[in-house]
């Protein structure tokens, strides 16, 4: 067997591993999200669990597994394990609600989510980590030269596989087959990709017989898939019913609709229909047989009439989200000329349409209604229309995607689309007495962000909180009589609403207290912004309060302005959600993270170079190869960290600037993985798998410079308005990020192998370290750094991390004799 043939087979197996790994990630994440009700915090936990387990698997394998002719058989055995583990994990996750969900409809705590993430991903991910080492090992089997590049090629091929797998599962597979079928197919693909290596095992029968047997086995399996498909389909439907019987016992599961934004489950209870996306309750609407749909959908009626009565004469209205729960029907009672209703997910509309109450269906067919299936923010950027009222009827800003409708930049975009005297309306969850600190932080942030853009902001209501904003004088009304008068004069009649209700909804004293609390919070000189004093029991009028705002301390804009580059409302929303699972106790990780000063990271950053310096100055204390291994290992960790941190930053920035279009986001991720593969391939070609520690240090320095450049450039990108330019720019930047990070791994592997006598198993060890760094980068950047400190800070932190790795390596290289030359023992090994 020639070296090239080995490498090709190893690369084929790694490509298969990459594809299957990505498919498995998508499938397991989606199943977990159903259980976690779409909580975005869980994605960070899942990513962390995923990378940690893969890291554990690859590290363990690189330690324990010995190169032997039997590794091909181990590869096949591992493939069979993954083949079985993936569908079984999916089935177990669907059965889990029966013993995990104590009370139907209740939320899981972050600890429970972390535990489930760890348990559900372990069987597959550990095996995937082992698989990488086996693949890299097999690629260099029988090769006397450890620098032949097995691990590097495997890395490059796996990254390519990741890209292909991501595109495959999101654009093709998910539309064709259910999760179980995809899992079985993925297992088959893995087995097929391992086949050439298995054929190479010493005990394998020779010649054509061997190939025939393998071919027969694969052929039979391929034939079995279409035969199994009906059974898998039935098993899939049955397991969905089992899942929802655990999540929502007493509800009838009507159907599960695949959607690129998360599976939509349609449930019925009595005459009402509820829609859950990724397990999260979206909304409930009246069913086709509901006697009084207006009473059933009363929350929609209240929002529609409160919002539209705030404008003296609304004619053209833009409603972003929420229209299926009776909003459109109620809004049309106000003699509008045009109602543009933006709904992102067409699958949701398709799922709801046959179940709509006839009155709601008729409203959607009204010639004044224009239904738009696009991202609301992208629509606002591109439309030339002007509106009297724009209503954002989206869920709370608990995710980066949702937060885009609550940022300073979005409010400005909405402002530019408002007609003179126009009003923007947003809503958010709240509690009656606003005692929750994160809840207060979040809602106060929304108030101050709106106030930064609009001249007049009026908060109203308790559950939910409504915020009205306009630039026009004397437009916003805090008086129930005026609103009731507008309602009556327009001749609006609704079975779910009457002009009397304004007296209940618009009460002077609670509104004054609400204004007092929201407008005065976030002005404390104490950086931790403790809870303020409670509002006076008899506060001054809202007008009087507004006049005195300029005399107060300024708002702490770094923590209480929600911008595209610093989506702080996401952090507060997640903190608040976490608090609700902890019975109101405020203390916890979010409090710690909120109070933690990022400057400590700089102090920590000085640690590795100083340690390296100590080792250099006292050569007797640490073996010279040990110091190099540590420095190279550090580059793997920092590369993993900056890989994920920059990816998070680019994704956050891209969807803020461009809009949340699933295909575009998928393309960005695919470009990153493609760049990673390209970089690894180019690195291998350029350096030939030889240890070049100085080059490695230079690559780290280049990465640091690039990350710093991104940190400076990203805030500027928010000024872009042309979608085409945005797409190209972010596409290019993402590809470049991937390439830069991809170059690093082959160089690091070669250096580590030279210093450790591990040969090809160095790849597995470094792969594990890089995944650990990636795990840290994903969790910290998405949950803490980007929301609390700003997206651009992800770039700065990556720059610091890579700079530290570069400095450490340079310090080590300053030691004479240079410990980084290829190990002579290894070179002479038989």
């Amino acid at each position, binding site marked *: 067997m020639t070296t090239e043939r080995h490498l090709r087979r190893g690369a084929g197996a790694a490509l298969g591993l990459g594809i299957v790994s990505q498919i498995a990630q998508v499938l397991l994440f989606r199943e977990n999200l159903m259980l976690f009700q779409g909580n975005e915090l869980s994605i960070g936990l899942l990513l962390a669990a995923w990378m940690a387990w893969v890291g554990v698997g690859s590290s363990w394998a690189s330690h324990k597994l010995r190169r032997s002719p039997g590794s091909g058989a181990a590869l096949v055995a591992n493939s069979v394990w993954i083949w079985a583990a993936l569908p079984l994990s999916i089935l177990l996750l669907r059965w889990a609600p029966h013993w995990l969900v104590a*009370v139907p409809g209740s939320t899981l705590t972050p600890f429970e989510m972390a535990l489930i993430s760890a348990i559900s991903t372990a069987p597959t991910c550990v095996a995937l980590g082992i698989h990488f080492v086996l693949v890299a090992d097999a690629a260099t089997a029988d090769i006397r030269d450890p620098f032949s590049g097995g691990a590097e090629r495997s890395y490059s091929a796996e990254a390519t596989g990741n890209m292909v797998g991501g595109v495959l599962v999101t654009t093709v597979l998910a539309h064709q087959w259910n999760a179980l079928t995809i899992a079985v197919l993925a297992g088959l693909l893995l087995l097929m990709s391992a086949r050439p290596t298995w054929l190479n095992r010493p005990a394998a029968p020779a010649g054509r017989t061997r190939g025939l047997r393998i071919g027969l086995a694969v052929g039979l399996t391929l034939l079995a898939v279409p035969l199994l498909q009906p059974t898998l389909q039935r098993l899939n439907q049955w397991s969905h019913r089992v899942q929802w019987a655990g999540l929502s016992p007493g509800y009838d599961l009507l159907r599960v609709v695949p959607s690129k934004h998360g599976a939509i489950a349609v449930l019925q209870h009595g005459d009402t229909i509820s829609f859950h996306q990724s*397990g999260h309750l979206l909304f409930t609407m009246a069913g086709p047989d509901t006697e*009084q749909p207006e009473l059933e959908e009363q929350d929609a009626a209240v929002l529609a009439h409160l919002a539209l009565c705030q404008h003296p004469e609304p004619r053209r209205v833009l409603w972003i989200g929420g229209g299926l729960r009776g909003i459109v029907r109620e809004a049309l009672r106000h003699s509008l000329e045009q109602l543009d209703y933006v709904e992102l997910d067409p699958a949701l509309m398709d799922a709801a349409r046959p179940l709509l109450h006839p009155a709601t269906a008729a409203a959607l067919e009204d010639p004044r209604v224009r239904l738009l299936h696009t991202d609301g923010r992208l629509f606002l950027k591109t439309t030339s229309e002007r509106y009297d009222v724009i209503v954002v009827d989206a869920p709370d800003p608990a995710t980066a995607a949702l937060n885009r409708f609550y940022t300073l930049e979005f409010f400005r975009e909405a402002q530019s689309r408002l007609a003179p005297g126009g009003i923007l309306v947003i809503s958010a969850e709240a*509690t009656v*007495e606003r*005692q929750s600190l994160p809840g207060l932080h979040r809602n106060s942030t929304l108030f101050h962000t709106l106030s930064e853009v609009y001249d007049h902001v009026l908060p109203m209501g308790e559950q939910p909180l409504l915020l009205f904003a306009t630039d026009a004088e004397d437009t916003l009304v805090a008086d129930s009589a005026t609103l009731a008068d507008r309602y009556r004069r327009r001749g609006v009649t609704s079975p779910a609403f009457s002009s009397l*209700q304004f007296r209940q909804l618009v009460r002077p004293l609670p509104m004054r207290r609400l204004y007092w609390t929201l407008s005065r919070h976030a002005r404390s000189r104490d950086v931790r912004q403790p809870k303020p004093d409670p509002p006076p029991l*008899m506060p001054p009028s809202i007008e009087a309060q507004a006049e005195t705002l300029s005399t107060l301390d300024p708002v702490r804009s770094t923590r209480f302005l929600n911008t595209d580059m610093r989506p702080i409302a996401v952090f507060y929303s997640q903190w608040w959600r976490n608090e*609700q699972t902890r019975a*109101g106790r405020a203390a916890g990780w979010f409090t710690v993270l909120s109070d933690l000063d990022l400057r400590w990271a700089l102090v920590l950053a000085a640690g590795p170079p100083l340690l390296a310096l100590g080792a250099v100055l006292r050569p007797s204390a640490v073996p010279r190869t040990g110091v190099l291994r540590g420095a190279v290992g550090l580059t793997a960790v920092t590369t993993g960290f900056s890989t994920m941190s920059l990816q998070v930053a680019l994704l956050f920035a891209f969807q803020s600037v461009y809009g949340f279009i699933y295909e575009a986001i998928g393309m960005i991720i695919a470009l990153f993985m493609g760049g990673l593969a390209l970089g690894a391939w180019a690195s291998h070609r350029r350096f030939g798998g030889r240890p070049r520690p100085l080059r490695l240090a230079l690559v780290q320095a280049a990465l640091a410079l690039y990350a710093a450049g991104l940190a400076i450039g990203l805030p500027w990108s928010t000024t872009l308005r042309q979608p085409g330019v945005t797409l190209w720019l972010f596409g290019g930047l993402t590809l470049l990020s991937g390439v830069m990070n991809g170059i690093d791994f082959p160089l690091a592997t070669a250096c580590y192998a030279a210093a450790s006598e591990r040969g090809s198993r160095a790849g597995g060890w470094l792969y594990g370290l890089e995944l650990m760094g990636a795990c840290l980068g994903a969790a910290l950047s998405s949950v803490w750094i980007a929301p609390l400190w700003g997206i651009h800070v992800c770039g700065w932190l990556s720059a610091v991390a890579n700079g530290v790795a570069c400095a450490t390596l340079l310090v080590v290289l300053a030691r004479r004799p240079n410990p980084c030359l290829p190990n002579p023992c290894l070179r002479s090994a038989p």
Partner: protein
Amino acid sequence: MTRNRAVNHDTSQPRGIMSRRTFLVRGALGACAGAIVRPSEARAEPGLAGAARLGDLQPVRAQWFEPATERGVLRCVLCPWRCELREGQRGRCRVREQRNGRGVTLVHGRPALARDDPIELLPFFHVTPGERVLAVSTAGCNLECKFCEVWDMALSPPEEVLAYAMTPANVVSLAQAAEASAVGFAFGEPVVFIEYAEAIASLAREAGLKTLLQSAGYLEDAPLRRIASLLDGVNIDLKAMDEAFYERVVGGTLQPVLRTLKTLRALDLHLEVTNVLIPTLNDAPEQVRALCRWVHEELGRDTPLHFSRFYPLYRLANLPRTPVATLTRAREIALETGLRYVYLGKVPGHAAESTVCPECAETVIRRVGFVVDEVRLRDGRCAGCGATIPGLWE
């Protein structure tokens, strides 16, 4: 006593009580925090209230503590938990503890909520329609409902809750300033601030104000009888006729609540009952029927019963709201069992928000939400047929 031990397994360490180590750690942290945090100035509103500083608790000696069998341990006999507390330990209500050998309450004169609302909001539908009530509440609760609307106040320790500094006299003055006809203890759980409520109720009565209580009714008989003697009307939240529901969703037990209701009926107080119908958890027709039968048999057919609509919130944020059809069906069941005043809550515009004379079927009080639109009552009698409508109408 036996039941208490079953619930409160480790009586030396009830839930919410600090261990010595935790106390030391928190004490040290608190000292550090105190060194760097600038205390905010307390704002005073002359005659009404001042804002208490966060964490500025004023322990006041509490009633309903007795020595336990073990030396140095006090037993709180206010509610069925009967927590046994060592020095520095706090009960599961989060607001009562043993300090310096005495039982104290930490929320006396520290209401977190003081607001005037329509009486209908509490809800009382058979008490002076359209008038206003000043409602007060503090931090703390002796239950842990997963659908609590005021979880950030009731399920939090008083150190973490913003509060006013208001003496009982301040509360009564505020009620008078707001032109309220009643003082109410509602929205949180008044049982945990029973001493404060008693002091306010006593002064309110002297000032000619009505006194109303809205509670889950989870308390012992003796304190119940004491406070009841100072009250005009009570609304008890009967959360389900199901012991398992109380255990899983409420964090308590059913029997003490039923005992409270029977006692209140025996005391001849004005009594209304509220039941929040939560889809699939307590809305089964047989459960509703059992609840209605019990109310009819034990409390009488004239007891107003409110079926309130559940909206997803707090720990049950992923459970859809109650269908109106479920509420309507529950009301039909209640009427079938013979109850005469059955209302639906949080469905503004529904006919079942209004009071209908059971004799002539005329609407005597028309409501939209909590807003009273029309009253056709004369001296507590239907303006149409003259039938007596039970309630506090003066």
